């Protein structure tokens, strides 16, 4: 009962002092702020370019053209009030002298030569209108000549393909739509450690840096303190995630999926949720978090200052990041020796196994081995971390030595 009361007190104290720090809000708000700025820029430039396109389309200019390819139809040219000429050199001179705004030359063999476009300079961005109109004249004429909608679709590259693949048991493979939900656990794992790891490390070293350990250890069970710190850090992480995600959700529903480059709502509804992959993903994430958070607490307990502890935290982050360097190998050849090593080596296992699980190359037996080893090792490391905290925290001025640890072991 007292332990539960103390756990609540520790969580509350640690949580509020984390969220009251200006640095927490600077880190938390910088992401949505950056996101809002990018959305603003994308929205503004998209609107501006749309307005400009409409303006350009409405803007008329005088055209002359010479067609040696015999593709451009007079009826298409007439719509644009383009005049046909036979004297290429004179037409270029007319553009130079300003008598005509643009001249297009269509060579006889378009496979070998390019369409030549000459125009009156109207600014870096506006000059693009000449080639756009020249190409449009050609495409419209070619399409009209083919006069077959199917062939036009093929020539314009607007034909798509739909692929269906089957698993060994004959079921339809869901592909990316099934990979996305379990991949979310990888994203969650990665961001949790990357964003909260430093907080956790600082929070553990803090007792030692503030020389408050002796008072704490005579008031509170170190396990309660460490668990309280872990839970408070995760709560602070939830606040951070909520603050970061909220602007994206608002933008998604208010401005639409296109603006923030997210998939359409229909695609989201087509996602395939494979319960086995999701359960394995969740367990891998939990095991990975146990291992990495335990390691961080252990580092914090051994090191005398946050600065020194930070160097070792960097190594943990690198180990976590390493599997991304061989991501193509993980996806294409999961049986490769290096992938197998990364799958079962504890500190590279979470990312590697989460990737393989999402893409369906992690067998249930392999998953069971990785999950159980992560959870068992994570538990051992957390228990060791508590022990290290208890005795390492008394070493105010230096690292905890193994000799010291064996001497102080009640």
């Amino acid at each position, binding site marked *: 009962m*007292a*332990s539960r*009361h103390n756990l609540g007190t520790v969580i509350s*104290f640690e949580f509020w*002092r984390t969220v009251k720090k200006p640095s927490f809000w600077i880190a938390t708000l910088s992401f949505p702020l950056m996101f809002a700025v990018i959305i603003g820029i994308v929205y503004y430039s998209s609107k501006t370019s749309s307005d400009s396109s409409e303006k350009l389309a409405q803007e008329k200019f005088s055209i002359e053209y010479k067609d040696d390819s015999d593709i451009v139809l007079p009826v298409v040219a007439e719509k644009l009030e383009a005049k046909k000429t036979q004297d290429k050199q004179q037409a270029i001179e007319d553009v130079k002298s300003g008598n005509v705004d643009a001249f297009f030359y269509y060579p006889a063999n378009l496979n070998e030569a390019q369409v030549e476009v000459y125009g009156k300079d109207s600014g870096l961005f506006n000059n693009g209108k000449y080639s756009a109109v020249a190409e449009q004249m050609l495409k419209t004429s070619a399409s009209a000549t083919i006069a077959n909608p199917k062939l036009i679709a093929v020539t314009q590259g607007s034909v798509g393909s739909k692929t269906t693949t089957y698993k060994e048991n004959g079921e339809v493979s869901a592909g990316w739509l099934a990979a996305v939900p379990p991949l979310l656990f990888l994203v969650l794992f990665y961001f949790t450690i990357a964003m909260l790891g430093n907080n956790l490390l600082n929070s553990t070293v803090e007792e030692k840096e503030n020389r408050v350990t002796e*008072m704490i*250890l*005579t008031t509170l069970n170190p396990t309660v303190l460490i668990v309280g710190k872990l839970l408070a850090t995760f709560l602070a992480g939830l606040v951070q995630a909520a603050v970061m995600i909220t602007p994206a959700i608002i933008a998604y529903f208010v401005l639409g999926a296109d603006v923030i480059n997210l998939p359409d709502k229909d695609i989201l509804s087509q996602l395939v949720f494979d319960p086995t992959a999701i359960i394995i993903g969740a367990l891998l994430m939990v095991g990975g978090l146990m291992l990495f958070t335990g390691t961080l607490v252990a580092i914090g307990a051994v090191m005398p200052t946050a600065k020194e502890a930070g160097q070792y935290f960097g190594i943990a982050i690198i180990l976590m990041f390493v599997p991304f360097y061989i991501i193509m190998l993980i996806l294409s050849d999961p049986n490769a020796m290096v992938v197998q090593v990364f799958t079962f080596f504890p500190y590279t296992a979470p990312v590697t196994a989460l990737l393989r699980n999402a893409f369906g190359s992690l067998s249930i037996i392999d998953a069971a081995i990785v999950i159980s080893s992560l959870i068992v090792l994570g538990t051992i490391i957390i228990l060791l971390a508590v022990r290290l905290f208890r005795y390492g925290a*008394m070493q105010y001025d230096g690292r905890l030595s193994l*000799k010291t640890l064996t001497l102080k072991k009640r």
Partner: protein
Amino acid sequence: MTKAADSVISIENFTMKFGDKTVIDDLSFEVKKGETFGFLGSNGSGKTTTMRALLGIYQPSAGSLTINGKAFEPEDGKMLGYLPEERGLYKKESVIDVMTYFGQLKGLGKNEAKEWSLNYLKRVKLEDKAKTKVDKLSGGQQQKVQLGVTIMNDPDVLILDEPTKGFDPVNRRLLMDIIEAQRAKGATIILITHDMSEVERLCDRLILLKDGNKAAYGTVSEVLKKFKKTTMDDVFLHVYGEDAATQQEGEE
């Protein structure tokens, strides 16, 4: 050694070794309920080590150390007030937040802890510093806050490791008044100090540690009589002699 019925703290055949070095060698003594007990010795004589072992921070190499008949556990922290030699508080938090936190850990409700803290701060003339961050306080002010945290919830047992270290005479007086008030409330106090006048004024009994064991143990008058001295300063000089003069300053 026969344990007295009214003993609160009992240390029996306590030995503490760090590697090959024996810091405490077969030490036994008791602290009785309600008494103020002086725990004395030169730097490095093992006073802080003994207290850390008593509070479960160190594992003794041999012997038994109990409070109220059992080994101390953090869950018993509510009845204990410990002012360690190594001072420290959460420096980036406000005074009131830190005091309230420790008050809650000692079993007080949040509001109760806050109210107690505000009253204490008023008593030590720090009422205007309640919302100030700890690292903005002077060393002496931080010590006052730490003493407040120690005596919160009126603990039955107080262990004060050099409580007046770094205090000016005015604040030393204030601090001693607070300790005397706790004593009057019936608290059992272990006072670790180098100030022999404090010992003479406050302590009912004392122990003097030398070479890992007791050089003297009894009431102040018994100790004075044993060494045929009139002041505890003289006793200290007699026991430690050149050792005390040449003892390196620093941690135990």
